[in-house]
């Protein structure tokens, strides 16, 4: 009967480790090629974005912007479908200033005025602006990482105490390995897709931290229970595979519901062209997939290897 079939996760663990390591490798290579982009929230710097209507020559526009600013600029123009009117199409132009210096309000004002003067019919309006000094952001990033480290240490402690029957420390450490796996996945997604690390990254990492740990704990809980029922003589690999088979439906269903919610947010944010939400929902979806994968395919098999190794050591003694 299909119901009684036990999926063999430990046997396939080499494949799982291989998949993860391959993605890591691609990530590291990309990291060397592209480097890590820090958002101006952390690195300091400035950008401005304007909305305007009607067709404008991009070269002329670029020249005008460059003449009116002291810093080197790069611009990108995107079409804003939702704001199109019947006879004129709407666009957004993003002006990125090179370097890590913040532009002053006067510089911003003079650029805005120059644009309005040169194109009186285009209805230039500031959509978004951000100018940040470098020293402020970096401190914040370090603080976030410290907070993540403290939270991780406490979580390992909690797991170690609560799951002492199934080798608490090993369970705690492997849960942490799974967490780092997920954080690395999110980080490499940012690197591969060349998205700058911003405060959304921090929020996503924190969310996935909680999500992935919850997944891992649900599995540990089942292992704890099945081990009691099956007796400590039963092979540890079998106990894990048996438990993981029992919870896998739950893990998948929970991931589906979470993905439905975040996927809806993602689709809507793309339709409405809200980049801050898109850059937050996309890595979150990847994190959810990675979180449920790492619990069953990484943390569990690693825990089994550790337990078997311990047993071998005990026998040898």
């Amino acid at each position, binding site marked *: 009967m299909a119901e009684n079939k036990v999926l063999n996760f430990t046997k396939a663990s080499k494949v799982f480790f291989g998949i993860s390591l391959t993605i890591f490798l691609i990530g590291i290579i990309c990291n060397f090629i592209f480097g890590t982009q820090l958002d101006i929230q952390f690195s300091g710097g400035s950008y401005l974005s304007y909305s305007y209507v009607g067709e404008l020559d991009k070269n002329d526009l670029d020249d005008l912007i460059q003449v009116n600013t002291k810093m080197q600029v790069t611009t990108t123009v995107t079409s804003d479908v939702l704001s199109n009117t019947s006879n004129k199409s709407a666009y957004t132009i993003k002006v990125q200033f090179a370097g890590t210096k913040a532009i002053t309000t*006067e510089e911003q004002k003079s650029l805005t005025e120059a644009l309005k003067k040169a194109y009186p019919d285009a209805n230039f309006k500031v959509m978004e602006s951000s100018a940040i000094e470098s020293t402020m952001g970096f401190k914040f990033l370090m603080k976030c990482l410290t907070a993540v480290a403290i939270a991780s240490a406490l979580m390992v402690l909690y797991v170690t105490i609560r799951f002492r029957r199934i080798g608490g420390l090993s369970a705690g450490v492997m849960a942490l390995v799974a967490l780092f796996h997920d954080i690395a996945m999110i980080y490499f997604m940012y690197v591969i897709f060349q998205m700058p690390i911003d*405060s*959304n990254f921090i929020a996503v990492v924190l969310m996935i931290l909680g999500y992935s*740990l*919850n997944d891992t704990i649900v599995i540990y*809980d089942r292992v704890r229970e099945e081990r009691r029922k099956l007796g400590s003589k039963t092979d540890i690999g079998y106990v894990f595979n048996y438990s993981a088979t029992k919870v896998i439906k739950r893990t998948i269903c929970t991931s589906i*519901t979470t993905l439905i919610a975040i996927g809806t947010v993602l689709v809507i944010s793309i339709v409405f*062209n809200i980049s801050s*939400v898109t850059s937050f929902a996309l890595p979150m979806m990847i994190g959810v997939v990675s979180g449920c994968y790492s619990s069953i395919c990484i943390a569990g098999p690693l825990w089994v290897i550790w337990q078997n190794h311990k047993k071998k050591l005990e026998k040898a003694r």
Partner: protein
Amino acid sequence: MKRIPKPVFFIVAILILLFSYTAIFGVKYYVGDIEHTVLKGISDIRWGIDIQGGVEATFIPADGRDATDEQLDSAKAIIETRMISSGITDYEIYTDSGTDSIIVRFPWKAGEKDFNAEKAISEISSTAKLTFRPGNSYETTETGANGTPVYKTPTGDTTEVLMDGSVVKKAYASPDPENVDQYVVNLEFDDEGTKLFADITKKYEKQIVSIWMDDEMLSYPTINEQITGGKAQISGNFDVDSATTLANQIQGGALPFTLETKSHGEISPTLGENSLVAMAYAGVIAIILIALFMIVMYRIPGLVAVIALFGQIGLSIAAISRYFTVFNSFTMTLPGIAGIILSIGMGVDANIITAERIKDEFKTGKTLDGAIDRGTKNSLSAIIDGNMTVVIVSIILLLVFGSTNILSFLFGASTTGTIYSFGYTLLMGVISNFIMGVFLSRVMLKSLGGFKPVRRKWLFGGAKKNG
């Protein structure tokens, strides 16, 4: 199994739905055109500027000068006065003594379409000018944030400037020695100011000399007698707050540094408005999809999960909209939404774990009552362990990024920001999850287990042929 009476399900379900409805839409009534809010709903949530749009700016003393805490507080008082007088009443302002910076955030007002942010930022940070002027003639009156009149633009005799704030050495509030429960504002002048003030008080004895900041009249005391000692007291109808405010404002006029804009940013109101509409769509669609998925997959336990989901959303919203007035005012940002998504995901998860467990119990041949009983019991430890670790994360975040700031020795003092918002919604969400997803779900499930028309195993996840 201890049976829970049948009506309990309906009572709990109706209470949850009623609560969620009021938490989402609020309870309001109109007398004429004036809106009275009984219970706050989603529309009363204060959205952060990353969602609603608005302006953010950080000011520091110019030229890298090191400011004292009192000086920062005075600068804060000036900025507040200016924002209120330019009609910005909904704002957040923090001082950070570690980096000597003042951070200001304000969202767009509803219906704001064309707002000159650059102008507003340079206006609120320009050097404050405190002046002493004869008489108290003014041109216009506006109503300030708390309903008190604000007098603007000096006219007539009052256009003359007798002296400015730079001669004020110190301004502070203290209890009035003559009247219980009243406060006075004390002024101390430097040598030049002492001389000037002696002349002024001689010339204008028994007359009014008003004190102005920029274009706004702060106070218009009457000179009782000539003051030669360099110390003056303004008495009037002050309580401790109003006296402190005035003292800070006067002291601020004597600010020894100019403010420099260190960073600034804005998100246009149109962009903000789009985001809110988009979020609303996304929320509604996601709830419908999840509800369909849960009911199709798990039938009765799925239905219970959906009711609990509504309850949890209601509680999460209530915790940020000041539905319960005991909670402090809270600004909802994008990471805050991430916190809600995570906690709701965990809430649904709690129900999925339970439903799967009940299914497992049917497979071992349990009766309906037995399966519900064992299923709910066996799933409890996983749910509690999972949620407790998330509680740990959220508490750490609140401690690190909140006002307690336990890492201040490493990173200096700072302000509550977006990450705090995540920790707060997550903690509230997980607490709601314990109430809704764990406790009330179980009550509803067990109550329905005794309800004849639905006492079918397949409705609870058992195989259909056994029903």
